[in-house]
C-alpha cells in the first residue's frame, strides 16, 4: 500500500481533466487521473493505495468523474485536513471513504499510516490524530454501501422530518 501525498486545494480539474468527461467507466477514467499534474499517479497507483491531502481536497466542479477516477484507480480512502462539499458527498456515493483529519501532521510518502474510522483516529508515524465523524445522516448511506443500495431499499422518502446534527 502506497501513500500519495497532495497539498491544499486539489481541484477536480486536476483529478480528471474536462476533456475526459464523456467517459464513465471508472477504470478508463483512472487512466487519466491527475493527467498533466501528477503523471506518475496513473501509472503507479495500485489497488488499496491511500491519498493524504491538505485542505479543500476536491474543490471545483461537481463532476462525479473525479471520485470515480480515483475509485477506478483502486483508492478507497482519502485522508484530508478538509474536503470541498460536493466532492465529499460524491466520494461517499462512489464508495470512497473521505476521512477528515484536521490536525494531521506532515506525512511523507514513506510514512506509515493506519486509518481507524470506527475508533475515530488516524495513526501516522506513531502519532494518533483524531478524525471528524461522518455526519449521522451520511453514515446511513455509508453503512448501506453507498447511495444506490441505500435508495434501492426505500420505497418513498419522508420529507422534512428534521434532526439536529
Amino acid at each position, binding site marked *: 500500500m502506497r501513500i500519495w501525498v497532495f497539498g491544499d*486545494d486539489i*481541484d477536480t*480539474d*486536476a483529478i480528471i*481533466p*474536462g*476533456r475526459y*468527461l*464523456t*467517459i*464513465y467507466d471508472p477504470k478508463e477514467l483512472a487512466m487519466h487521473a491527475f*493527467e*498533466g*499534474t501528477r503523471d506518475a499517479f496513473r501509472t503507479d497507483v495500485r489497488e488499496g493505495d491511500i491519498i493524504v491531502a491538505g*485542505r*479543500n481536497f476536491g*474543490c*471545483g*466542479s*461537481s*463532476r*462525479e*468523474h473525479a471520485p470515480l477516477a480515483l475509485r477506478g484507480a483502486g483508492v478507497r480512502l482519502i485522508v484530508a485536513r*478538509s474536503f*470541498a*462539499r*460536493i466532492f465529499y*458527498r*460524491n466520494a461517499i*456515493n*462512489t464508495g470512497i471513504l473521505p476521512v477528515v483529519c484536521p490536525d494531521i501532521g506532515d506525512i511523507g510518502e514513506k510514512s506509515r499510516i493506519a486509518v481507524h474510522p470506527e475508533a475515530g483516529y488516524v495513526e501516522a508515524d506513531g502519532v494518533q490524530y483524531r478524525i471528524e465523524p461522518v*455526519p*449521522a*445522516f*451520511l453514515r446511513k448511506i455509508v453503512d448501506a454501501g*453507498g*447511495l*444506490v443500495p441505500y*435508495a*434501492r431499499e426505500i420505497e*418513498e*422518502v*419522508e*420529507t*422534512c*422530518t*428534521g*434532526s*439536529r*446534527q
Partner: protein
Amino acid sequence: MAKTIVEKIFSRICERDMSAGDVMMAPVDGAMIHDITGPLAIHKFHEMGGERVFDPSKVIMLFDHQVPADSISAAELQQFMRSFASEQGIFNYDLREGVCHQVVLEKGRAAPGEIIVGSDSHTCMYGAVGAFATGIGSTDMGFVLRYGALYFRVPESIRVDVSGTFPEWVGAKDFILSLAGDIGADGATYQALEFTGEAIRRMDMAGRMTCCNMAIEMGGKAGIVPPDKTTWAYVGERRDSVPFDLASDEGASYAAWKSYDVSDLEPQVAVPHNVDHVVAVGEVAGTPVDQVFIGSCTNGRFEDFRDVAGILGNRRFSDDVRVIIIPASREEYLKTLRAGYIERFVEAGALVEAPCCGPCMGGAFGLLAPGEVSLSTSNRNFRGRQGSAEAEVYLASAATAAATAIAGEITDPREVV
C-alpha cells in the same frame, strides 16, 4: 427565533421551523441536468430502481458543455439524454438555448424561496433571484430524479455587506474576485454567502448572477441575494409570480459578518492557478496573452458585452491575440446582436461563437497549448482547466478582458478608454 434568508427558505418549504444545523430530506422545486453530468445521473436513477422521474415538469434538461457535439461519444450521450427526455416527458432545451445556469434563470425556472439543485457546481448562481440553489453530484441527482428530494443540512450563512459605489469600469466581477482573495478558496465551505448592502441593491441582475455564480469558488454551498424590486421585476417578466417578503431577520445569527466598501476598488485579476490568488490589475499589467475568452455563466451576458463594446470603441483587437466571444445564451446573444455589438466584435477581429460553455471547462474547443497564456472572464483558473496543464489562465472582468484583447497584454480598462 430570528432567521437568515436561507433558514427561512427551508422553514417555508418544510412548513416547520428549521435553522442552521438541521438535517432533513427536503423536496426540491427544480433539478437541472446537462450533457456532462446528466447521463451518469440517469444511469444512477435506473440503478436505484427508478422508472418514472418524480415530476417531469421540475426537471430541467439542456446541453451546453460540448455543443454542437464535438465527438462521437458526446453525440451519443446527448442522444441518450434526448431519448430519456422523450420517454419521461421532460422538456429538453437541447442545445438551442445556451449555458445551463443562464438558461434556468432567464426561462424563469428558478424563483425566490425555491430550493433548486443542479448537477453542476455553479448552480449556486440561482441565488441571484433569491432561490436556495446548490450543485450536487450525479448519484445525488439520480436520487433526486427518483424521489424529488435530497438530504440537506441547513447551512450557516456568512453575511457579506457591500457599500459604496463602484468606480467606472469596476463592477461585480472585481468585487467577487476580491472577496475570494480575502476569504480564500475554502472560506465559505458548507456555508451560504448572503450578499446585502446598498451596492448589491443597486446592482443589476447580471452583476448579482456573477456574484452568486462564484460562491462555489470559496467553497460556498450557496450564494444568495435577498429578493428586492429588481429581483421581482426580473422574475415577473418570466413567470407568474406574486412578490412576498423574503429577507433575513434583524438579529439572525451568522457564522461571520463581512463588510466591504467598493468605492475605491480597482479592477481585480486572479492569477494562475488559484481563484483566490487575486491582485489588482496593475500588478500583472503588461503580461502578454495568447487568448482572451469573454463568455461563460459568470460573464457572458449583454451587460458584459456592453462593457466590451464601450472599451473597444472603434478600435481593433490585437492581431497577436485570439479573441473568443461567446454569449451565455440565445437571449443574451440576440440582445447583443441587436445592439450592434456583435458586428463590432467581428469587425475588430474576434471570433464570435454560438451560446455554449466553450473554452471555459477545456472540454470542447478553444484549448490552450503548453506555455500559452489566457485571460478569461470565466470562474476557474485551475491548472489544466482550459487545456494544457502547462498553460496559464488569468481571470478578470469583461472590461479588463476587452482592454487586454486590444493591447495584447493584461491591461487596466481605465487606461484604454
